[in-house]
């Protein structure tokens, strides 16, 4: 177990190195001058040259990359003398567009995205798995039919339709929740404000995912119910309730762990549509804007984050599987 985890962490580090190099390489071959993008309208050739030296864009690419790596572990100081500014470790660089260290920005954006993703995940797991179980349990009867209608809507309505619909009715018509984002509140300091802030994004995302999970759960349970070992359980004289609860669910729901972890990881990379509709300044919006602005440090940072979350979630899935299924040895 320990060797497994440490081996996987080494793989993860290598993967992240390659990912970050790839992003650097892509930016290097793009035909633009990164220093020219640091000063907006006030650019003069002089300012550009100063910034180029300050940010190290005058150095060869491998050296820039090396300074980037070094900064992650040791922090990084740009410029010299009184004009110098310092980004403490782990430093992913400095964003001129925001006049802030990337790590500091990340600390603002990540809680928003995490709140959206975790809340939506909980909501869609409850609704999706719950409806899936009901649909499988009452296959062919009205709960099954009702859930299939839900699945139809959830899978066919795009996120921006659901989101805009909610926004128009709940925020604009009924004025229950303000439209504009007035700042992040933590669930611990103001639970009600927190829920108000995120409830619409949660519903929007959860609606689409829950539909998929309903369908998946239903299919998985029905498939498990056809297994020979379920027939054995019935042959013992177990009641149908116990057959479901003890023998079916664990086997049927194990694959959902994989699905949920990867979907969750995807959301950390940025639920761009949802964040845009509800005007939430999370990772998704930030990444998108930074790509438009060729803001290399931010793009590298969010790319590493997205890749890192996927890798970590995969590791967690493998570990969970070893707990769930005794045949899996790690």
């Amino acid at each position: 177990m320990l060797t497994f985890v440490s081996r996987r962490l080494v793989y993860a580090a290598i993967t992240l190195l390659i990912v970050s190099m790839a992003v650097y390489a892509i930016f290097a071959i793009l035909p633009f001058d990164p220093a020219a993008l640091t000063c907006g309208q006030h650019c003069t050739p002089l300012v550009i040259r100063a910034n180029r030296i300050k940010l190290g864009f005058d150095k060869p690419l491998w050296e820039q990359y090396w300074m980037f790596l070094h900064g992650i572990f040791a922090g990084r100081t740009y410029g010299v003398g009184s004009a110098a500014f310092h980004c403490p470790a782990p430093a992913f660089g400095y964003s001129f567009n925001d006049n802030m260290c990337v790590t500091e920005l990340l600390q603002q954006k990540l809680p928003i995205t995490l709140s959206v993703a975790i809340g939506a995940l909980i909501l869609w797991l409850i609704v999706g798995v719950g409806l899936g179980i009901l649909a499988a349990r009452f296959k062919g009867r009205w709960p099954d039919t009702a859930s299939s209608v839900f699945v139809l809507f959830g899978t066919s309505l795009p996120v921006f339709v659901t989101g805009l619909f909610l926004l128009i009715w709940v925020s604009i018509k009924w004025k229950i929740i303000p439209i504009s984002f007035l700042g992040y509140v933590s669930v611990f300091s103001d639970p009600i404000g927190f829920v108000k802030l995120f409830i619409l994004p949660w519903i929007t995302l959860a609606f689409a995912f829950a539909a998929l999970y309903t369908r998946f759960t239903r299919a998985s349970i029905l498939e498990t119910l056809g297994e020979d070992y379920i027939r054995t359980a019935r042959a013992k004289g177990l009641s149908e309730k116990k057959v479901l609860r003890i023998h079916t669910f664990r086997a049927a729901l194990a694959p959902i762990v994989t699905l949920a972890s990867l979907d969750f990881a995807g959301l950390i990379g940025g639920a761009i549509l949802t964040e845009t509709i509800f005007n939430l300044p999370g990772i998704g919006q930030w990444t998108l804007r930074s790509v438009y602005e060729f803001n290399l440090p931010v793009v590298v940072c969010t790319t590493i984050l997205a890749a890192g979350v996927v890798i970590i979630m995969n590791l967690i899935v493998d570990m969970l599987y070893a707990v769930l299924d005794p045949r899996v040895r790690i």
Partner: protein
Amino acid sequence: MTSLLEISNLRVSFPTDDGDVHAVDNLSLTLNAGETVAIVGESGSGKTVTSLSVMGLHNPRSTKLSGSIKIPDGDQVIDVVNDDAEKVRNMRGRVMSMIFQDPMSSLHPYFRIGKQLAEAYLVHNPGKKEEARKRTVEMLDLVGIPEPAKRAKDYPHQFSGGMRQRVMIAMALMNTPRVLIADEPTTALDVTVQAQILTLMQGIQKEFNMGILLITHDLGVVAAIADRVSVMYAGNIVEQGSADDIFYRPMAPYTVGLLNSVPKITYGEKQRLQSIAGQPPSLINLPSGCAFSPRCTYIENAPAGSCAATLPDLVGVSSSHVSRCHIPESDRPQVFSHVAGGK
């Protein structure tokens, strides 16, 4: 009721979009204490459907059942087909138990086998955890698992196929049932392991005076342990008799075909296997008349047109050996005389 199991006129069909699948038609048989009754037939003939019917394991929403399956339980007699589902559930695993064809997939991969065995006991003896544990070790020992107390903590994937089938048998025996249904218990196993499992079943049968309903397509298995045999074809019993009747005095053309298709070990010259030509019929639109008639090689020995017109009755000169065939019974020993092993 003196027998352990009495199936009368059992019909099982599954409604589908293309029409009803008539899996079992008008099947009757009895099973007595200490006796092994075999149901033989090629795959798709309705053997598994029959055994699941006895266990009451068909989904009532997708299965049409009629007739009766009577099993005594104490001083009551329960009819699995017509009685309340809860009554039948209460008998499962206690009065009648079943072991399945594939021991690889029949045990739950996530639970230790000790837990799975104990569960079988606890269903019918709620709360008696200590007894369940003791009984688990006892039964594992009985079926020949070495170090039973230790192995009870293992998961199914840590056992070989033969050992798993032993575990399945141990599980079936947890409540000392009177009836054991074994659906192709050795089909998935190596030949040497097959013999061990059959010997084990015979030993257990003696010990508990159980009735065994043995489902198989393997005539070798039948010859080894069956007292009486029912031969099934397309959902019908086509011949029923003692094992000797079936092997030495077969009376139905299908039985003759089955016996001829068994490879025999002979010295000297190679022997050609005689398979039965053609395929079993679709169970959705069964031909009127004898279902075997399209594949029957003796059709010209029967009165002209009779095979296509009606399904022959299951009758015989002796009531203990009955068969379905339009060829007059007195002619059949002559007609089937070339059967290997026949007299």
